[in-house]
């Protein structure tokens, strides 16, 4: 991860944001159904999150895949930890695992 300015930018962003979602588009105008699905889950729980639109930044779009060693977008990070993509987030939500996951990490849920 040394000498890679994109990875440094990602690491800095992760350090500054407890809940960070790398997605296509924005929470209001998602540009991909998978990204929209994760936004919907987070909104349902009332989690405050920051998002990065990878469509606006080709370096991040490629860089985050290498950084996480994960081939697809969206990608959700909580306190610097990679939690998963759309399938995993949806599955955790449906199994009731996501709420305790956030709670254990001290992330406030407005709708819990």
């Amino acid at each position: 991860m040394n000498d890679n300015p994109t990875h440094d930018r990602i690491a800095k962003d992760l350090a500054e944001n407890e809940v960070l979602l790398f997605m296509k588009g924005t929470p209001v105008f998602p540009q991909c159904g998978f990204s929209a699905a994760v936004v919907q889950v987070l909104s349902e729980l009332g989690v405050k999150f920051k998002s990065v639109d990878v469509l606006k930044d080709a370096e991040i779009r490629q860089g985050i895949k290498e950084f996480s060693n994960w081939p697809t977008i969206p990608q959700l990070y909580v306190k610097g930890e990679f939690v998963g993509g759309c399938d995993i987030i949806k599955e955790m939500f449906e199994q009731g695992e996501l709420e305790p996951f956030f709670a254990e990490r001290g992330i406030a849920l407005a709708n819990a």
Partner: protein
Amino acid sequence: MAMSAREIELAIRAALPDADVTITDLAGDGDHYAAMVVSGAFKGKTRVQQHKMVYDALSGRMGGQLHALSLQTSVKD
């Protein structure tokens, strides 16, 4: 070019020989699939690790040649 359901299944089976693989062509366009993979090799792994094992089996085609693969994994008893 997109991958066929059969190609996806074979690639996953090549890496996880014991796996039960069920592929569904979601949109009927040969480009959006759902895969259910059940394997003993997933035992003791997190979901992220399990999904990575499947992505590794598809050796870099996920996110490129294979645009959309909705993935569900579980441990075989």
